[in-house]
């Protein structure tokens, strides 16, 4: 297909203007984004995940995640029969380059589970931070102020989901930011953008038109470690009982 030169002359400036809009502004000042109008979460649809690792790679690219540490990762579970308590789990390099092939005929059930920060409404990591370097924004995203963090790693210990780490060179805590710099501009997160099957979808629980509301009505969803009562906002469809 060819875009003619004339067509291009019209399209390019329009695209440039649109792009500038995309890049503009701080959320609390921007007339387009009001924090109080949003309450962010994520929907993860297990039966759709194919373990391709696109999300892990996209997150690393978008957020300069250092090698060996993960803001998001994918686990592959192998549950043999009724043994819910001890599944076999692997996550080679966080699933970044996918997973080894499983030959047909293997016993038991296999499935993939993307993991990430659950952006807990009652976040235990926020509770233990001694200085207020990690916090829940008014729109429900748990963020880290890396110019204020001491690097004590108390928050890393307090997270039940293992989603935090200490950045090896910055020496401060780091984790998934729900691509805050994207969602406040009307974009979706890098992981959702890169997911080819729609297994990951950003959800704005305060937006009445968000598809999550319909989804929550028609599917059975769970959060990870519900007994911790963290108010986790990463909702999993089709989560097996063996998932840790």
């Amino acid at each position, binding site marked *: *297909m060819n875009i003619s030169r004339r067509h*291009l002359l019209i399209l390019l400036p329009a695209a440039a203007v649109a792009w500038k809009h995309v890049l503009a502004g*701080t959320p609390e000042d921007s007339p387009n984004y009001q924090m109080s109008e949003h309450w962010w979460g994520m929907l993860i649809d297990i039966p759709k995940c*194919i373990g391709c690792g696109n999300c892990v790679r996209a997150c690393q*690219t978008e957020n300069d995640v250092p090698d060996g540490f993960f803001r998001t990762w994918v686990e592959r579970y192998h549950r043999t029969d009724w043994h819910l308590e001890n599944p076999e789990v692997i996550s080679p390099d966080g699933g970044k380059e996918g997973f080894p092939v*499983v030959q047909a005929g*293997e016993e038991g059930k296999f499935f993939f589970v993307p993991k990430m920060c659950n952006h807990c409404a009652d976040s235990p990591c926020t509770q233990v931070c001694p200085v207020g370097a990690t916090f829940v924004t008014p729109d429900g995203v748990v963020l880290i*102020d890396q110019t204020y963090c001491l690097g004590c790693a108390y928050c890393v210990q307090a997270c039940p989901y293992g989603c935090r780490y200490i950045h090896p060179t910055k020496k401060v805590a780091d984790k998934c930011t729900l691509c805050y710099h994207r969602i406040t501009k009307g974009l979706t997160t890098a992981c959702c953008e*890169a997911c080819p099957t*729609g297994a990951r979808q950003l959800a704005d629980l305060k937006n009445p038109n968000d598809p999550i509301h319909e989804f929550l009505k028609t599917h059975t969803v769970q959060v990870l470690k519900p007994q911790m009562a963290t108010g986790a906002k990463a909702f999993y469809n089709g989560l097996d009982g063996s998932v840790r």
Partner: protein
Amino acid sequence: MSGLKDTGHLFRFAGLFVLAFLVFLVVRSYVVPKTFGEYGHYRGAAIGEIASRPVKFAGHQTCETCHTDIADTKTKGAHAHVNCEACHGALAAHADDPTSVTPAKPDTAVLCARCHTASAAKPVGFPQVDPADHSGGVPCETCHNPHSPVIGSDSGASTAKGGAK
């Protein structure tokens, strides 16, 4: 009360505390960031700082602003919900300056295999093949249009190319 007569030293010690506390308050007023406490127990300005980090993935809406023909082809095919950058990588730099930054063409041998290599771990019903058996080394785009991959569903293999010239 006459007892206070020999307690001067205790007041001096207490005075040290008071002095230290006052110094602490003064230093604190200088050192604590101005936006601290704006929304909660944290530096309010951090929200804006985090929100203004650079974007590396343009997002498919931006791609579709220019690449309308590709977008049209895609919406009718099996890859309708596979976003552009899922295969083409992060291209905000290209969207920002389309003529200077030209994306490299993905290597289908690696790219397609990532998702479509058959594995019993993948959901049943997801299209998957053994790459060696399936095509015997022939590049995927020989038969499949990546933007509408089901054979026969679209105008054919030669419409794979889609850059703005």
